[in-house]
């Protein structure tokens, strides 16, 4: 229901963040994330940064597979 775009924050000012995905740039609202700074990676949806991204999917997959038992307890 919600296509997300992972992107890098290039600049922030007045509740707006300039985000970059593969060289494509756009201004989005940063009002949902208080402490956004250039260099952060964010998930963008409908013109709004909705979450910080704290790692890549492959490392996350490794962690999950290593901790499969703990995850479910």
């Amino acid at each position, binding site marked *: 229901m919600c296509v*997300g775009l992972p992107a890098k924050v290039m600049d922030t000012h007045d509740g707006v963040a300039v985000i970059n995905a593969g060289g494509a740039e756009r201004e989005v609202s940063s*009002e*949902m994330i208080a402490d956004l700074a250039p260099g952060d990676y964010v998930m963008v949806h409908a013109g*709004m940064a909705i*979450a910080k*991204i704290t790692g890549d*999917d492959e490392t996350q997959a490794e962690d999950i597979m290593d901790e499969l038992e703990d995850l479910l307890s």
Partner: protein
Amino acid sequence: MSDVKKSAAEKAAEIIQNYDGPPIRIMEVCGTHTHDIFRLGIRNLLPENIRLISGPGCPVCVTPVGYIDEAVWLALEKGCTLCTFGDLIKVPGTEMSLAGARARGAKVDMVYSPIDAVDYAEAHPGEQVVFLAVGFETTTPASCVAVRKAKEKGLSNFSLLTANKTMDNAYLALKGSADAFLYPGHVSILTGMGVYERLRDGHGMSGVVCGFTGPEILTALAVIIKGLQKGEPFCANAYPRVVTAEGSPEGRELIADTMEPVDTEWRGLGVIPQSGLKLRDEYAAFDARLKFGIPNMEGRANPACRCGEVLQGKIRPDQCPCFGKACVPEHPVGACMVSDEGACSAFYMYGGEQL
């Protein structure tokens, strides 16, 4: 290849492919998951005893016909400029879609963000601009920011036609549709894990929060299989790089300060209590229904269309008599054939379940 270290995704794929237990049904709630699962060919990886069911998490698909009728009425009767996500353009209304209204002279503008619609309204003071606000927890904050911005700027030519929905109560309506759920990754950014813990503890429902890349979907499915094998209701977060346990208090606050819950109709699921959102009284001037006095639109869906049963996982898309005949992406009969995320559209475009 035995000396090469297997990636986590490969290990997860093995767990999925080697599953030989009793048949299980897993519902991917989110339409973006439906789309990505087809795009990544994940259904072609599943053994016969694992069935994926596409759920109702596509805002276009669950929006009732009457909503499109309201939008068409605003455009044709009131001369409003409609700003919308591209997804809604082809959804059939009782008489016509937005594309049909556009062909009759309606002004329909596609936007990337609701906030862009506010900028458009500011730049076009002579037009009454209505943003078609559909979406779940993920999308609603942007509509809230838009309406607040319009109020701040004192714009009198901007309003929202709301059909925003929340998932919490909808999950309960899906209970029994599947043995476990792939929970929507981006809705969970807002909600956090609390809702899933309540579903587990209070209702015995199981599921895993899932991201959208190949490794993410594979690992989440592997976690579900392991969880079901243990036999106890469970929930887990397999998307921790984006979703946190507490979710986004800022996002929830933004929504709660701008909108309030209402009972609302979901196509196929009927009215679900407190699962919709409307603007709070202080934003009433930006509510298109109040502003333009939209008459009550019943909305008639094509009676042959079985989108409702598809959305609940009761039938596969190709079991609907319209599928692939009267109903194709170019001429959709039901909303599930419109959106790229719709179960019928994905099923049709990717040529069914198995290659």
